[in-house]
């Protein structure tokens, strides 16, 4: 059982994600970027390289200035998304990353640098990020 949000939880998801080759096809594939996850007030930094998520670590607010983009939601919304994934083995209609991004006034994905080219990595690798969070269906999660 891994507690969300924590590095332990992201590591558990990484393990499932990195070990499932089906995530490398069907629109997935190599992904090179550093993404921030802002879960309420907690910050995590994920590094994707090649076909894997190679690192998850705790971050500080100023780290968000460096990442290509970061996903920012209140903790309740993160939980709702993860519960939907756990129930359906993947995100369904209103809980995909893209939909959550569009449904929110300020979006889910954002950046401090404001460079849309780097922010666009969220779109360019969207299927990979979706697969990553979908992999959390196989991680026993506590909150």
């Amino acid at each position, binding site marked *: 059982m891994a507690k969300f949000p924590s590095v332990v939880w992201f590591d558990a998801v990484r393990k499932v994600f990195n070990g499932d080759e089906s995530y*490398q*096809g*069907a*629109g*997935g*594939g*190599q992904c*090179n970027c550093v993404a921030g996850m802002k879960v309420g007030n907690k910050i995590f930094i994920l590094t994707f*390289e*090649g076909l894997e998520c190679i690192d998850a670590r705790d971050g500080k607010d100023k780290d968000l200035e460096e990442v290509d983009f970061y996903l920012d939601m209140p903790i309740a919304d993160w939980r709702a998304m993860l519960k939907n994934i756990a129930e359906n083995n993947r995100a*369904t*209609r209103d809980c*995909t990353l*893209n*939909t959550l*991004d*569009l*449904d929110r006034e300020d979006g889910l994905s954002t950046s401090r640098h*404001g*460079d*849309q*080219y*780097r*922010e*666009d990595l969220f*779109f*360019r*690798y*969207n*299927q990979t990020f*979706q697969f990553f969070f979908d992999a959390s269906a196989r991680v026993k999660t506590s909150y």
Partner: protein
Amino acid sequence: MEPVLDMQLDWMDQQGSWGAAAEPSKQGLTLADIQVGAYGDVPEESDNMTGRPRGAGARPESYRIGGYSVRSKHEIWLENASFLYEEALQRQWSSATDVPWDSIEPLPDDIEQAECQLATFLTEVEFVAGDVPARWISQTTPDYFEPRNVLLAQVMDEARHMDVFRKRALANGGGLMGATGGTAGVVGSIDLARDFTEMSSRLHISGEGAVLTIFRMGELMAYNEAEKAMYRLCAQDEARHVAFGVMHMRYMSETAPERREEIDCYLDEAERQILAGSQNPAGAQAESSESLAILLGGGKDQYDEGVNKLIAIRRRQLQEYQKRVRSAGFGERFDNGRSPIKEMLAASAA
């Protein structure tokens, strides 16, 4: 007795630079990894008219068969072409098997009609981005094969987009509807541009940037997992194409500042024609904007709700467009009053 060949072997002394030993990186042996020694030298001006691979030994007697019109690096180059090409290869998907077509269930008639109208429109416009890059590929010297390869991947992507929307239109009790004529042979259109950067600014930045938002919106307003997957995967491809445009324009802006004013003119035109015009499915054109509003609202009887969401889409389109143009190095147009985008944003917020 078997004949014996009299070997000359003179060619061994005429080959390209020797001793290249590119090594695979963590991501395999990528195009970036083989930029070794002389093979990584990309000429500012290409005199290669014979179609020889960059870095190969030249034969003085070879025919000048290339007829390439794009022979200056700044006209087509971008710093990340190798990465975008490898990314495209990795992220190919199949509309036949990666979209869960079985998830489609019958929909109310107004929704199905709206979905089919949008699919007809997207079938129609998607291959603009197939036809046009193809034409430029054959006109570009192979010394710049990296951007050419990205464009070839784009042609492939667009073929798949054309195909997936046709599939959607014919998969659920509907059919194709009326064409919009959204892409036509008129001056200032993507098709007729006679300069690569002019074409790219229209196609990659404003055109595909707008369509990227629509694909993302398609994922939001999907009525089943098939549509969800279809739009999400198309959006990934589209984001790559947009990245090509942004990075090419950035390179052009840095290496050929004398062309900045001219490029601003293309952007003026694009902002008039594409962002507000017929090639933007969220624009004023009735077929696509009405169908989008129906899909976003959840039916004809909730049209107004759909329109409100559509206005939000437009805002998002404009904001992202503005940030991409800034990223490409042309942000001052938004600060000096040249671009109407700020006003558009303000007006749509009112």
